C-alpha cells in the first residue's frame, strides 16, 4: 500500500527551478532512501513534503491527505516526523525538555513519560545527560536526541535528512544501526543521504536524484550493483 506518494512535483526558489517533475512513493513498512550529491535537491524534497518549502506544482499525498495544503505545524499530527538536516535540537533546553517538545501534540502526561523512558532505553547516553543543555552535547549525541525527539510523537513514518552528516565513521555505523532498528520495529522510513553506500545497504528501495530530477530508481541491492551508481556515488 502506498503510504506517501509524490507526483509531478516541481519546486522553485525564485527564478531557480530546483525540483523537476519528481515522482516517488514510499510503501507502508518500507525503508526508502533518496541519494544524490550535495545540492541535488534532496533536502528541498523533504522540506516540501513537510511544508517548510512551497511547491510550484504537483502533489504530495500521505494516506490520502494532501500535504501541500497542510500547514507544517500540523504534519506531526498526521503521524509523520521529520528529523531535519543538521539535527536542529533546541540548544538551550535540556535533553529532557527537547524530548518533551517532540511530544508537544501529545496531551497525556503518562504517555509522554512512557515514551521518554523508551527513548532513554534506546539511547542510554541521553539518559545520562538528561539535564544537560542540548547545545553542549556532541554531534553524535545531538543526532540521537534529534531521532529521539522525533520518536516522541510515535510516528508511523519518519523522514530523516542526512543523519550521518559530520559524524565519525563509528558514529555513522551507530546511527545507521538505529535507523535499521527503528525500521524493524515497524516505522516506515524515508532516508535522505549523501553516504550512498550506507544508505543503500540498509534500504529496501532507493531513488537517485541528480540536479533536481530522479535519474534512477529501483531495489537498493540492484542499485548497489549498478555501474553508473558505483561510479558516481560509491567511488568505484
Amino acid at each position, binding site marked *: 500500500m502506498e503510504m506517501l506518494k509524490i507526483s509531478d512535483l516541481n519546486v522553485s526558489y525564485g527564478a531557480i527551478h530546483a525540483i523537476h517533475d519528481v515522482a516517488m512513493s514510499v510503501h507502508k513498512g518500507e525503508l526508502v532512501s533518496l541519494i544524490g550529491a550535495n545540492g541535488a535537491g534532496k533536502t528541498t524534497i523533504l522540506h516540501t513534503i513537510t511544508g517548510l518549502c512551497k511547491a510550484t506544482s504537483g502533489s504530495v499525498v500521505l494516506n490520502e491527505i494532501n500535504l501541500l495544503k497542510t500547514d507544517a505545524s500540523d504534519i506531526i499530527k498526521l503521524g509523520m516526523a521529520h528529523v531535519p538536516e543538521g539535527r536542529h535540537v533546541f*540548544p538551550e533546553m535540556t535533553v529532557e525538555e527537547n524530548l518533551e517538545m517532540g511530544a*508537544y*501534540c501529545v496531551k497525556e502526561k503518562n504517555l509522554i513519560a512512557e515514551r521518554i523512558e523508551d527513548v532513554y532505553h534506546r539511547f542510554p547516553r541521553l539518559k545520562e545527560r538528561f539535564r544537560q543543555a542540548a547545545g553542549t552535547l556532541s554531534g553524535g549525541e545531538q543526532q540521537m536526541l534529534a531521532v529521539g525527539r522525533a520518536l516522541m510523537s510515535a510516528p508511523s513514518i519518519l523522514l530523516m535528512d542526512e543523519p550521518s552528516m559530520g559524524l565519525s565513521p563509528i558514529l555513522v555505523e551507530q546511527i545507521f544501526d538505529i535507523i535499521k532498528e527503528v525500521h524493524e520495529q515497524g516505522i516506515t522510513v524515508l532516508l535522505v543521504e549523501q553516504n550512498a553506500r550506507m544508505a543503500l545497504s540498509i534500504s529496501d528501495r532507493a531513488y537517485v536524484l541528480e540536479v533536481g530530477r530522479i535519474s534512477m530508481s529501483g531495489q537498493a541491492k540492484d542499485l548497489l550493483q549498478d555501474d553508473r551508481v558505483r561510479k558516481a556515488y560509491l567511488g568505484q
Partner: protein
Amino acid sequence: MSLLIQSIVNGLNQGAVYALVALGYTMVYGIIRMINFAHGDFIMVGSYTLFYTVPLMVLAGMPAWMAVILAIIVCIGVGIAVEQIAYKPVRGAGSMTALITALAMSLLLENLALVLFGANPKSVPAIFNLPMIEFLGAKIQSKYLITLAIGVIMMLALQVFIKKTRIGKAMRAVPQDKQAATLSGIKVDRIITLTFAIGSGLAGVAALMYCSTYPRATTEMGTMLGLKAFIAAVLGGIGIIPGAMIGGLIVGLLEIFIKVYIAPGWYEAITYMILIVVLLVKPTGLLGKNIGEKV
C-alpha cells in the same frame, strides 16, 4: 535609621514598578528577540483605562483595585493589535526594521492618546486606601509593600510558567529554532501573539502599581518609564526573567538613595552613569551569559 528604612522601602516600591515594566520588555525580547519600544506606552494605555474604570468600580461598590482586570484586558487588546498590525508584517525584515516600527508605534500611541484624552494630565483616583505601617520609627505606606509583593509574585509566576508548562516551553523553543519548533507541531505565530498578550497584560498590572504611587495619567508617561525599565532589563540581562526583577529593583533603589543622600537634582544622571559603568564591565547584564548573537 528611620530615613534609611524609609528610603529602602521607597526604593523597592519604585524598583518594583520598573521591574514589572522590565518583565514586559524581557519577556517579549526573550521569545522573539525584539525590543518592543511601545511597551512603555502600554502602561500609559493601562493608566488611562484606570482613570476611567476606578470610579466605575467604586460606584459599583467593588474594591478599586479590581479595575486592574479591565486595564489588563485593554492592554492585552492593544498589545495584540499592535503585534498583528505593525510587528507581524515586518517580522523577518531584520532587527532594525522592527526597532523603527516599535518606535513608530510608540509615537502613534502617544499621539492617539493626545487626540482621545487631551493634553491635560488626568488624576487617577486613589486605588488603595490602606493605613501607614510604623516600623522602627519609619512610616511605611502599606501599598508599597503590596507593589513589591505583586512584582515578586509576577516574576515567580512567569518563571514557573516559562520553565514548567508546555506552552512556556514552546515559548522558549521558538526563538531557539523556529524550524524545529514548527516540525514539533508548535504554531509559531500563535506563540508570538501569546507572548505579546502576556507582556501587555503585565503592563496593565504595572499601570496599577504606578498609579497607586503616582496617580496621574499623561500621554507621554510611558516614554520615561519605558526607557528606565528597558535600562533595568538590560542591566539585569535582557531576556532573563529574574534579571528584569533585579535590574528594576537596583535602578529604583539607586534613584531613591541618590535623591535622598547625594544630590536630589542629579539622581537620574548619577544612576545612569553607574549603570553605564556596570554595562561596560559586564555588557551582557548582571545575570546575562556570554553567548554570541545567533544567526
